[in-house]
């Protein structure tokens, strides 16, 4: 599981690699928490799912947990570049009502500004 974290205009951009399933969620949370501890001043996040071609309920649950964690800390989280197959899972589980979803990372970043 490769999670690439960067900071743009004070907003954390988390790029997730390949799939987000029960096999990879622990690694995702671990790497995300580690980066959070290194960058404590970052409150807002964009999760870039461009490379994620598959997601199961565990992956979805992890994203919801991260959203909860971020909003409790006074920040916000948006999702960008949601691919076709994960989007179908988002649609049937009504997760699209929980998250703000944008086509590109730039669009998501603009919404924070």
């Amino acid at each position, binding site marked *: 599981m490769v999670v690439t974290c960067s900071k743009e205009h004070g907003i954390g951009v988390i790029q997730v690699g390949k799939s987000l399933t029960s096999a990879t969620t622990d690694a995702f949370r671990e790497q995300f928490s580690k980066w959070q501890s290194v960058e404590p001043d970052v409150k807002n996040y964009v999760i870039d799912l461009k490379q994620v071609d598959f997601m*199961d309920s565990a992956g979805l649950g992890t994203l919801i947990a991260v959203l909860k964690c971020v909003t409790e800390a006074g920040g916000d989280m948006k999702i960008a570049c949601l691919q076709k197959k994960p989007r179908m*899972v988002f649609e*049937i*589980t009504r997760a699209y009502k929980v998250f703000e979803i944008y086509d590109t990372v730039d669009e998501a970043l603009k919404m924070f500004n």
Partner: protein
Amino acid sequence: MKAIFHVGAAHPWADAFAGVPWALLPIANRPLLDYWLETCAEQGIDHVQIILGDGADQIESFAGDGTRWGIRIQYGFARVGERPLDYVRQSHERRDDGLLFVGGPFFLRRRKAFHAGGFQILEACRFNHADETWFLFGKTAVEVETLLAGDAGSSRGLEQIHIHPFPIDRMAAYYDLNMKMVRGEFSRYLTAGYGMADGSSVGYNVLTPPSALLRAPIIIGNDCRIGAMSTVGPNAVIADHVIVDSHSELSNCIILQDTYIGQNLEIHRKIIFGRRLIDPDDGTVVEIDDSWVVARNRPDMRTEDFIRYCILWFLALGVSLVQVLPFLILYPLVRITRIGAYRRQLFHDPKTGYIGLPVFQKIENRRSVVYTLFRAAALDRFPWLVLALRGRLFVCGQPPMRHPQDDDIITQLTHYYPAVFSYSDYNKDNDRLADALWYVHVRSLFEDVKILIKSLLHRFFRAGR
């Protein structure tokens, strides 16, 4: 006249329904092949040749010898690399009295109620799609030969008898056709179940709680269970043996047979087949591994079943050890007072076909303390528990199905777990078939223990009432 249906050619869009040959894909809850055979029966075509490819056994199992339609069906196999029309060209003897040929997923879509004359007035014609002949019709050998030689036939084609040729060449076409049917065209065909004035059709043995909302137009197959607070429709095609769990919303969708739809889902503009989620627009397929979201309704869980069986066996041993002494005391008293006795009845058995089980029956309709105690301690099931310990029955599961009363139910069950205790022990109003299908889906150690405890408690508190 004879008919040749070539269903052996592969069509990539249908790969999403792996395990179901495209000829058996449902259109408004009836397999495509069923419409073709119905047309033959209506038009007096009594001899049909079906050329098989992948899924041959399923097609043969569905169509059989054609008795259901009053026609005679024979089977052949497609050769590798053979184009559908090549088969017709090589079989001269089959087109002497004219020929009806269908060579692809082709729907004879009726634009209005079928003309009584039908194919009697239809001029020789063919329908080509993607460089292949998918439909060909000629009333004489000469007409057929002319068409096979490359003649286009009548310019009016099938439209002459108010049939719009509908090739199902991609997922979007399959979805579109089903939506057209549910929106009001399916009444032009023979349909199963109850037809409503609002354009809906609901099959037999469909359970819907008062809080579930069915919004027309919808087509629901047989033996379905709709959960509480769910909304089905508009424009939903639900096949047979589908379970929709509570708080889910289904619209503009096709749910194929034996599918479980989990709680609180929103199924809009999707096709769902078991655990496969299909986007009708581009045919994208997503396999869902979470059985609580969507799943095949009849899962195979041999390891879990074995573990569950072993644990339940020890529970049954405990219950029977507690019951043995009361049974030895109370049963002689029951016989002496002539309040009840065991009668042997014939039930279906998954291993041997049939099994005779002792069923306790009350002989005299009068109050008796002995009888109340006997029932309250569930001692009437003691002989069944002994049979469960001997491996002849399950401890918890489906109610044993009687022969011949429950023969229809047995034919619809692929998993049959005749058991000592079942849902019917504490909920007698429920439908047996729906309960049996439900148990197959939700069976687990937790569910079995729940059935055991609720059955024993229900008997204890309700005995004598």
